[in-house]
Each structure stands twice: as C-alpha cells, then as structure tokens.
C-alpha cells in the first residue's frame, strides 16, 4: 500500500510530463520540450523535489508530504509563465519561466497527500485508519484547490488594478462606490445602486415565493382537490428547465409585441409598454422558478404537523381559524423562515433571468458578467462586485444554517398518527385557491410556449406550424461521407452531454464520500470541514465562474479553455447535492451495520464497498441523476468558462436568444427539457422498481431501536 504511493511519487517526478494537460502519451510521444518529466531538461527549481521523495522512502512520511506540497506550491507561485510571478519578492536575475502544471505534478501532489495520510495514521490519528485520513485529505485538498483558491483569487484581484499592480488603497473606493450603494432612486434620481437592487429583488421574491409556496402546500395537503400529483410534477420542472427559458417565455407573452400585450392593445387600446423588462419581469420569472422549491420545503413541514395536535385544539373548543392561528401557524413558522431564506439565496444568485428580462435593471450577478465580457473588461470591478454578492449569499446561508438548521417543531416519529388534519378556515381556503389556480394557468401557458413556441413561424404573429427552427438546430444530412449531424445545435448538445456524463460519477463519488466522513467519522476540525464543503453551495454561479477565470487562467494551474475546467465546475457546484442526499440516507442506516461489519474483520474500505454502497445504491443513482440534470441546465458559472471548442447547450441558447433567434432558442430548450425529463423519469422508474425488489418490506436497520 505504502509502496504504491511511493512509486506514484517517483513516477510523477521521473516518468510523467510535469507540464501540460494533454494526455500523457500524446505529450511524451510528441517529444515537446515542456513534456519532459520534472527532473530533466535543466529545470533546477524542480530538483529539490527529490528531497521529499527521498524522505518518504526513508519513512519520514508526514514531513516528506508537507515539504513536497509546500515546495510545489511555492515554486509554482514564484516562477510564472513570464518569469518571476510575485514581483514584491524582489528576486533579481534572469527569471526562468514555466508553464502550467500537468499530469506529473498532479500525480506527485496526490502521492504527497497520501504520504501524509499514511504517516498520520501510523501516529494513531483517526484510530489509525488510512482510508479515512486519505479520503479526508483528498477532499480537503480538492476543496482547497477548486473552491478556496478561486475565492482567494477574487480577493486578490479586488486589491489590484487591471494591470495587476497591487493597489489596496483603491479598494474602499471600489467597494463603497455610488454605483453599488447609491440611493438615488429614493430621491427620484436615476436608480439605486446595484447592491440595493439585488437585495430588494431577493426580498420581494423571497416573501412572495414563500407565500405562494405556502398557498400551494396548503391546497395540496389540506384540501380534497387532486392537485398534489400535478403540483409535484410542476415542482420538478424548474430542475429540468434551463433557467433563462422562463424569462424568454415571459417576453413572448408580455413583451412589447407579446401575445397578451397584442391582445390588450388591439382589444382595449391599452398602450404597449416595456413594463416586463426589469423588476416585474424578473420577479415573475424567479417566482415561476423558485416557488416549487419553497413549496417542497413547506409541504414537508405541513405534513409533519401532527394532526393530533390540531384535534386536541379543536376538542378544546377552538374554531377553525383559532386552530390555524394558535397551533398550525406557530408550528410551521420555522419552515416559513427556511423557505424564505432558500428563495432569497436563489434569487440573489440567479443570473439567467435578470440577463434575459432585466432590461436596465441591473443586479449583482449580471453586473459581474458585463464587467468581464462587456467592452469595459474590468476584472477588478467584477471581483469587487463578486465580494459583495458573496457576502450577501454567505450571510443568508449562515443565517439559514445557524438559525433554522436544527430548529423544527415538527416531528416524524415513525409512530402512526391516526388523526385527521383540521380543515382550513373557509376564507383562507378561498384565498389559497384564488392564488393557486391562476398561477397554475400561468405556469401551464409558460411551459406551453416553451415547448411549442419553436414550432410555429413567429410566435405572437404567425402561427403556421413549421419545423424550420428544429431543423436548423438538429438536422441530420447525408453528405459525401455518409450521414452527419448538420444542425447547428448538435455540437454543443453533444459536448454538454459528454462533459456532464463525465462529471456526474465524480460528483456522486466525492459527495457521498464526504457525506460518509461527516456522518460516520469523528475527527478534529470536523465542523470546519463540513462548513467548507457546504459553503460551495452558497457561492453563486457567477462568482464561481469569475473566480475560476481569475484563478485558472495562468500557471501554476491553467485550465481555462479546456473541457476539464467545465467538468470541475460541474463537480464542485453539484457536490453538495450528493452530500445532502448522502447525509439524509446515511442517517437512516443504523450505525450498528457498519460496526457489525467492522467486528466481522472487514476494514473501512471493505465495509463501505460491501455494506453501505449497496444499501445506498438508490440514493446514489438519484444523486447522480440530479447532478447530471443540474449540470446540463446550468448557465451562470459555465457562461464564463466555455470556449470555441467546448461550447455548452445553455450558453448556445442564450446566444441565440441574445441575437433574437427566439425560435431556435425555444426549440433547443424544448429538446433539453424533454431529454432531461426522459432521463429523470426513466431512471426514477428503474430505481423505484429496484428498491421494491431488493429491500423488501422491513430491513433489519429499521428495526433498530438504539
């Protein structure tokens, strides 16, 4: 075991190309100068890495690993692509230059981590369990490199000007700028700062989404209407819908030449306006997208209210309103706060809807985007805006975790509660239905436009059915060399599927490994580990995108323009989904199963492989499907990371919509939605069957009473 990792370290230094991320074979066979392994080609700054390797072979594993990693990081930062990377060190002399680290460096770094794990295990850390320590260090290392380091790069960019000079003095000016914090709109001026815009937008959406979600949940749980299945289907839609499509559909409905606008103008002479562009449009679009999330949270909370409590209240002479006001409402209040904060965070982080329908109403996420891609190309400003947005989302995230995290009055004990929920007060019921039914109609209309709008000539004016747009994007022609995919959308579609398919298993593996460490192992600094892993959930996609550009555009780790950086962003954006699924499912598996396996002579890795993974298989598949779908439909992070070679479906659609080709954009969106729905439904059906077949009625784990 130890020998294997020693060997890997040696291979990393003397066999694999130290620089470059082409496949090792390609770069070695190409015999390019930079493809030489570390110790060759006269690169004296890499020679000291022999020392840690020697130390490791001599058995000083921990110091060897630490020294190896430290020297790698140090030389990587000091010696850049064009000489000295850190100017203030004042290094003189002819600067050597080096390219970005490659496979050899990755292998050597991994070996260093494992040396440390083995060394610490020998000293009795984590009960001497190499597997636990190895997993812990691997995940910590990955998070440090792909979450913490990019965020630090943002901070470092914020204190530099765009030429790269260190100018901390300018930071307060940039941070407390009028454009960000101005309050002109209160005095009737042009508009408020972008930070206020963002906060106001999130507040409105948070409150409205919570109320709408509550209305839906009340209707689903407490009335006889057969809405539940329908609402459950609708709640899946936002997951499979690329986020900006809703904005697009709203433009087609309410824009200056939208269907509704036309109707009102022609029939009632109501003048055409651009009211939908801006806060109203963003609000409607975000509500359509986030209400289902609030609904799911509140549905669980409402179902968790024990009917016997309400029955107790009504036998104590309380009327319907009194029961609702004095029992039900206080019980669900923590759930309401939770739903509010989740919608609030989603709205803060949303990028695609403001981009599509925001008009002149700027929010932080779109401003960040335009600071980088616009004519201005002001990285420093993007970094500062990112910091503001990050502070907002992290604060809300921390509030949600600290304040609500464990607090819930509702209890699911597993004991049957035979009571019946109290009927809703009539006024409340009428109000809920009055909101829910029109909203359902709007949702159906919006999705109708999305799915069908691309199959007519010009939506809103000419409803002649046509396949033109579909064929533009997805035609298949017969040419000289046989059949080929001639549609303009194929390339991005296939790239998306490939990259998401590669990222998905990695995401699930890392997410579940992390969940297992968190739920089953005790180690020093566990809360910090948990915080770091879950924090990546709170970083808005736009901030991830900009931070990856800032961190991985230049050596020592250069990834921009590759498919790898897109895969990595998928993995670390979606890993928390796997962690949550894993935590929830592991909590249901009694620890005595692991312990039984351990007392039966099975080691940690074996226990994980033979006992936990098979039991968790349905959860793993579900996490993988969601990871895949989320990867396919995301736009905010990857819009910064795509390149000519690796373009993605969502970015392609945004591009089409941007130049006014709504037909192609809608057709492509419909294809994505249908594909993702097929993936979701198909796999869910498979997993569902498997669960019934394999796990029978009553697993021993559920008999556990400890």
């Amino acid at each position, binding site marked *: 075991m130890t020998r294997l990792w020693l060997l890997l370290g040696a291979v990393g230094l003397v066999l694999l190309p130290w620089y470059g991320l082409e496949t090792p074979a390609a770069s070695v066979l190409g015999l390019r100068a930079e493809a030489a392994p570390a110790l060759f080609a006269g690169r004296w700054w890499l020679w000291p890495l022999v020392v840690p390797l020697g130390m490791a072979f001599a058995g000083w594993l921990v110091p060897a690993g630490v020294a190896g990693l430290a020297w790698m990081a140090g030389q990587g930062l000091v010696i850049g692509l064009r000489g000295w990377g850190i100017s203030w060190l004042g290094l003189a002399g002819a600067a050597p230059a080096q390219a970005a680290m490659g496979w050899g460096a990755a292998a050597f770094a991994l070996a260093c981590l494992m040396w440390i794990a083995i060394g610490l295990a020998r000293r009795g850390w984590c009960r001497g*369990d190499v597997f636990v320590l190895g997993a812990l260090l691997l995940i910590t290392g990955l998070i440090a490199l792909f979450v913490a380091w990019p965020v630090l790069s943002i901070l470092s960019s914020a204190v530099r000007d765009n030429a790269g000079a260190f100018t901390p003095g300018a930071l307060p000016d940039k941070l407390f700028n009028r454009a960000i914090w101005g309050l002109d709109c209160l005095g009737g001026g042009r508009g408020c700062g972008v930070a206020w815009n963002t906060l106001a937008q999130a507040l409105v959406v948070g409150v409205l989404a919570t109320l709408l979600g509550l209305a839906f949940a009340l209707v689903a749980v407490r009335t006889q209407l057969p809405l539940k299945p329908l609402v459950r289907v609708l709640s899946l839609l936002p997951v499979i819908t690329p986020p900006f499509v809703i904005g697009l559909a709203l433009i087609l409905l309410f824009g200056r030449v939208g269907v509704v606008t036309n109707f009102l103008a022609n029939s009632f002479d109501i003048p055409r306006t651009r009211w939908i562009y801006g806060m109203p449009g963003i609000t409607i679009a975000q509500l359509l997208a986030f209400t289902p999330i609030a609904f799911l949270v509140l549905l669980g909370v409402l179902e968790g209210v024990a009917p016997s409590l309400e029955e107790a209240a009504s036998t104590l002479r309380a009327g319907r309103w009194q029961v609702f006001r004095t029992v039900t409402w206080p019980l669900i209040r923590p759930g309401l706060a939770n739903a509010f904060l989740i919608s609030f965070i989603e709205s803060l982080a949303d990028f695609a809807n403001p981009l599509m329908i925001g008009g002149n109403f700027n929010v932080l996420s779109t401003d960040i985007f335009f600071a980088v891609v616009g004519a201005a190309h002001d990285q420093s400003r993007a970094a500062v805006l990112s910091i503001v947005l990050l502070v907002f989302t992290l604060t809300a995230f921390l509030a949600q975790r600290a304040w609500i995290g464990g607090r819930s009055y509702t209890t699911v004990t597993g004991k049957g509660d035979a009571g019946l929920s109290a009927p809703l007060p009539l006024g409340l019921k009428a109000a809920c239905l009055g909101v829910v039914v029109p909203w359902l109609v709007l949702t159906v209309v919006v999705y109708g436009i999305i799915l069908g709008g691309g199959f007519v000539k010009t939506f809103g004016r000419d409803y002649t059915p046509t396949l033109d747009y579909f064929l533009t994007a997805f035609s298949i022609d017969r040419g000289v060399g046989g059949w080929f995919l001639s549609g303009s959308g194929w390339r991005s579609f296939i790239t998306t599927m490939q990259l998401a398919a590669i990222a998905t298993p990695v995401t699930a593996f890392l997410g579940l490994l992390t969940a297992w460490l968190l739920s089953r192992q005790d180690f020093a600094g566990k809360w910090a580990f948990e915080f770091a892993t879950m924090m990546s959930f709170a970083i808005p996609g736009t901030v991830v995108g900009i931070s990856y550009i800032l961190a991985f555009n230049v050596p020592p780790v250069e990834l921009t323009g590759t498919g790898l950086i897109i895969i990595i962003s998928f993995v670390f954006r979606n890993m928390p989904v796997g962690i949550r699924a894993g935590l929830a499912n592991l909590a249901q598996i009694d620890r*005595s199963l692991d312990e039984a396996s351990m007392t039966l002579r099975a080691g940690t890795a074996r226990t994980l492989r033979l006992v936990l993974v*098979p039991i968790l298989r349905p959860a793993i598949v579900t996490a993988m499907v969601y990871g895949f779908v989320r990867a396919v439909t995301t736009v905010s992070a990857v819009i910064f990371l795509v390149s000519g070679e690796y373009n993605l479906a969502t970015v392609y659609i945004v591009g089409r919509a941007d130049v006014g080709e709504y037909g192609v954009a809608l057709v492509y969106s419909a294809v994505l939605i249908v594909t993702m729905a097929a993936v979701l439904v198909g796999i869910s059906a498979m997993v569902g069957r498997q669960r019934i077949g*394999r*796990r029978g009625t*009553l697993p021993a784990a559920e*008999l*556990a009473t400890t």
Partner: protein
Amino acid sequence: MSDAVIFRGVSKRYGQFAAVDVIDFTIAKGTLVTLLGPSGCGKTTTLRLVAGLEHASSGRIEIGGKDVTNLSAAERDVSMVFQSYALFPHMTVLENACYGLRASGIARGRAEAMAAEKLALVGLEGLERRLPSQLSGGQQQRVAVARAIVLEPKVLLFDEPLSNLDAKLRRHVREEIRGLQQQLGLTVVYVTHDQQEALAVSDRIIVMNAGRIAQDGTPRELYEAPRNRFVADFIGDANLLPATLRRTGATEAEVRIGTLSLTLPHRGVADGAVLVAVQPHSVRLGAAGEGLAGTVAKAAYLGSHREYEVALPGLAHELFVVAPVAQPLAAGEAVGVAFDPAGLAVVPEG
C-alpha cells in the same frame, strides 16, 4: 484456566464526562459474564471497548493474552451480536453468515460450508436464501448469532440481545444462548439491564453504576450478599431498612431493626447505623403483636403468589412482601412482621 479478557484501569471519557471510570476486571476463558446495570451506567460502553468500537482514553485492554488497546475492531479476535442484530439488509442469510469469513480471506466455497454448518446449529436450515426482512424477529436474532460464532472468536459479545423479542421468546432464547455457550465452550460477555436475565444466564455478574464497578461476583453472591446499597436495591427488589449494628463475635453481630433484635453475620461492616437488605420473600406476616408492628397498605393477587405493601409505622418505611397465596390479608389489616434470617444481609449505609 487462563483469562480471555483483562481490563486494567480502563477509562473512557467524553470531554469532562467519564462514561467508564477506571475499571479493572478479568473474564475467565469459557465463562459467561454479564455486565449489568441501569441505562447510562457504562455497561454498553464497556462492551464496545472490548469490541474495539470505542477506544479507551486510558488503561490497557488484553484479549487472549495480547494487548489490543490500540487495535481497531476489525483487528481484534472478537465478534458481537448487536441489539438491533445489524443484519445486512441487502444480503441473504447465508451471505450475512459468510461475511466475516470472506472478509478474513476464506474462499467462497469453504466459507459457505462453514456458515451453513453454524446456521444449522442455530436451527436455520433451509432459510439460507432468504433476506433478513423475510424472517421473524427470533430468526433474525439467530442469524446474528450464527454470523458471530462462525468466526470462532476468542470472545463473543452480546449487547442486550433479547430486548427486541417478546416476553415469551425471551426466556427461550436466553436458554438457547446459554446452551450454545456451554456446548461450544465460548467466552461470552453479555450486556443487559434486566437482573432476572442476568441471574439466569451468568457464571459471573459485574454490576456497574455510574461508570464504575459496584460489585463483581456470582449471581448467588450478589443476591444473597450485596456489598452496598446500590447492588442490594438493583438486584432482587430488596427492601432496605435502617438498623443499628453492634459486633458480638468474630463474624456475628446484633442487629436492631426498630423493636426487633436479630443475630446476623456482620460481613465486615462497622458498628453503628447500617442498612439491612430484606428479600421480599423472606418476610413472614403473622398475627398482630408478634415482631414489628405493621399495617397492610396494599394487597395484590398475582396467581402464583401475593404481593403486599406493609407500612411499618415504627420505622417510617414501607415493606414490599411476596407471600404464598394461602391466608389472604386485606388492606388495612394490622399484622406482625418477622424475618427469615437467610434472606437478610447487612449493607453499609450510604
């Protein structure tokens, strides 16, 4: 006979709280030893320390003459039957029973033969292909036992194995476990909070209280000669009556309980105020005027015997009494209370 398990000054602390507080004991090979105590006394933690599922904060643990203090569960030669059974729900009965053998690197064919043999021993022949969820509670328990003994461990651990069974099955299963232990000559450490169960199956009982050992002895020693108030109270529902003691000989003492004077072994207890543990069935209720004056406060008929609560005004105490069915007494009747000296034991106060 050598010792299978040795604990030397073992503690397990969680922060400030000591779940197990410097305990020493040895367990002889081929015996069944019970860890007995109320919930939270540290008995399960002690068992998990033997298993290697918890690691001692200080002290030293030996199994089969080998220091295992820092070894993990997988590296120790013990196996355990869990309270929840912890059967792997995705594996068949046979796969569950084979698990330990396969993990130890034994080829599938041989492992299955060994497992099938042990499954037959616990009476599960023909159920090898079932999933645990298709078995009754009692059958699941047998699978858990078979899975544990198939490894022929130096020590077999039971964590409250009967708590998920109904009352009738309990008696049966506990006799089976005892029978199996004696048949195979196993060394067993058994955790329970039920003193009846402990008395019935054990060669020796270690009574624990608040992380320490309250008393360590044979069932008879514990029942008839409790060393302190806690043990007297916990084993056999003994009544504890205040008394005064004066030594009168090398082993004898005069013990006064209210107006009653008895001669009992002093068991090393010093002169002065003491407690006398009175077994409920050693109280004789006679006509008023003989012995201590008492009044029947409550009376209950339980078929095989009667139970009374007798108020003793002179001692300001109530006495729990188990009496034969004949000669019923009614609540409110005045009685005279006498004791059978064989059922009494002097216990230091406090």
